[in-house]
């Protein structure tokens, strides 16, 4: 009996020693709720990077220990889990949340805990120049960059001179509309008509007929996925033949699955495209497929890059101290990842990479890769 108690205590002591040695990192993403499919990609991207790093000896001789928390795509749940990760579990860094509204609600907790928070959310509203949080970093191109590139492509390549816009009613869509107005205006082009389709609406006949009567020669889509599907289906139904170029929600499987054949020919600005022939992308896609048996989708690559960024920052700082890590991430770190050269800019964005792609019925063909 005594030997059994002794053995149990020994195992417990060993486990405690091992966990003290690990670098604890939190991943806060939605696994239930509206954005649950994204949580799956995020977790798989981050776990892949952690396993790769740990299999080569970890960081500073220690293993990375990734703890996953479910934000349920809900800002208040995100607040609870981030608080727990920072103040109870005392992690070295937090990855996520991935929803902009959740980031806006929790980023100050990271500042309070002096712990880096690396997120894949894309709203321009929490750029460093706006929130001044030295501990908050973004791992994907923000929406301002994406809409600017979309407008540039629409005008310079597609030759759209009378753009018509269809937009949703959420902050994601309205912020994109503001950028589109600014960018078209800067090129001396006036949007001939901007029509709203609210989330949940399933008929856009009135909106599309108005755009047609306004004489639009190209459609700029700034909506979420279901409304994007409604719009392209009805454009085909009404036989309105204009180039269609959509925002990031128009370039993901959630849109093409719903739109079916109607999505063929649609252009979109994407944050990631697994068909990129770049070596780093090919390697990431191959490893991801071999590990998880499926192709990665945005934002898996962002969190994969993020884990490597953190590992490199710990190496450079030779420490897991939050303030030192934030300093390294802000000013000293520069590395090549799946998303190209990663370096923190004045907005605390590590990348501005995006792709202009066109859907061919099966996959998205890359037309241009922009930095």
């Amino acid at each position: 009996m005594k030997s059994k108690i002794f053995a149990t205590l020994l195992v417990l002591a060993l486990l405690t020693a091992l966990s003290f040695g690990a670098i604890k990192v939190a991943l806060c993403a939605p696994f239930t709720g509206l954005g649950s499919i994204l949580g799956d990609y995020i977790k798989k991207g981050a776990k892949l990077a952690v396993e790769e790093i740990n299999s080569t000896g970890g960081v500073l001789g220690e293993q990375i220990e990734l703890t996953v928390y479910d934000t349920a795509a809900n800002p208040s749940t995100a607040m609870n889990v981030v608080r727990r990760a920072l103040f109870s579990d005392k992690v070295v860094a937090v990855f996520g949340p991935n929803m902009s509204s959740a980031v806006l609600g929790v980023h100050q907790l990271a500042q309070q805990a002096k712990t880096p928070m690396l997120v894949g959310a894309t709203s321009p509203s929490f750029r460093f120049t706006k929130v001044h949080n030295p501990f908050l970093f973004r791992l994907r191109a923000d929406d301002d960059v994406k809409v600017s590139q979309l407008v540039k492509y629409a005008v310079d390549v597609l030759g759209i001179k009378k753009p018509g816009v269809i937009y949703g009613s959420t902050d994601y869509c309205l912020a994109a509309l503001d950028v589109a107005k600014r960018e078209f205006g800067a090129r001396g082009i006036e949007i001939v008509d901007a029509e709203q389709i609210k989330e949940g609406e399933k008929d856009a006949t009135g909106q599309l007929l108005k755009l047609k009567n306004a004489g639009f020669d190209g459609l700029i889509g700034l909506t979420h996925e279901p409304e994007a599907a409604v719009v392209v289906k009805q454009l085909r139904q009404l036989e309105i033949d204009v180039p269609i170029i959509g925002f990031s929600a128009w370039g993901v499987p959630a849109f093409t699955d719903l739109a079916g054949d109607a999505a063929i020919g649609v252009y979109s600005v994407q944050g990631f495209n697994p068909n990129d022939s770049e070596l780093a992308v090919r390697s990431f896609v191959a490893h991801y497929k071999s590990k998880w048996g499926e192709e990665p989708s945005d934002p898996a690559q962002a969190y994969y890059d993020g884990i490597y960024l953190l590992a490199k920052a710990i190496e450079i700082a030779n420490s897991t101290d939050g303030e030192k890590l934030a300093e390294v991430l802000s000013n000293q770190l520069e590395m090549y990842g799946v998303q190209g050269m990663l370096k923190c800019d004045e907005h605390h964005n590590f990348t501005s990479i995006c792709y202009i792609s066109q859907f061919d019925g099966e996959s998205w063909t890359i037309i241009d890769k922009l930095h």
Partner: protein
Amino acid sequence: METKDILQNLVSGIAIGSTYGLIGLGVVFLWQSIERINFANISSAMLSAYLFYTFYSEIGMGFFISFVLSVGIVALYGLGLRYLIHEPITKRGGGRLEFVVATLMICVLWLNVIIVFYGGLPKPFPPVFGKATDFVRFAGVSLPVVYFYIFLVVAILMAFLHFLLRKTLVGKSLRATAQNKEVAQLMGVNVNLTTSLAFMLSTTVVGIAGILLAPIYFVSLELGGGSIGIKGFSAAVMAGLIDPYGAVVGGILLGIIENFSTLFISSTYRDVISFLILVAVLIFKPKGIFVWSLHRD
């Protein structure tokens, strides 16, 4: 603006409005049968759409089996609503208000159950009613093929409900139970059976609607908590909650108002305008505006 554009807008308004009417039929039926408003009415549409998606797309069963299984389960769910919600509330002295509140909670419960098991992203409905790009075109106007199935089912259900409620003994028993349970029982009506039938038929009607609406609304939470539930209910209110034909006409009117508000006024204020008109209807004609075929008897 060309005439064919106006015609197209009208036809599209009728089409989307008929989907509201279809949901309104379920509301009318339950009110006619047991004088209760089930705020979880629309949940039956969402449940049948997800069940059909699971059986047909995920498990690979055939269309007919998937359809029968989905609608059958939703019918049993109606029975569950009776025994797990309606009866306990009634036994403890609760009335219509308590039932409304309970069903409102059930509606939210189902949305969360679906989120947990299927996630929040809409799923594509299999092309059993035609592909996304299959349209019927006539006289410069076009409509997706699926709407013709909807029109057909709306017509059948309208006629069926009218016939059932007015021309059959079962229908008379249902209405008698709704009006006075005790007297109906004294007159020999099997109240237990008719109440069960009312619950099962109301969820079945909406369940069938769910499978038909999924190509338009996708297999999504929208079918269980989106604006279609409110608009379907509005259509039923325009019919005074008693007239199946009125519910469909009310839904169609709402669809037309929405589309013409967008075309001639503003897409931003589309819902504001539609619901302002509905509020006005309720204020000035609280008993409904499309109550022709049936009378409160």
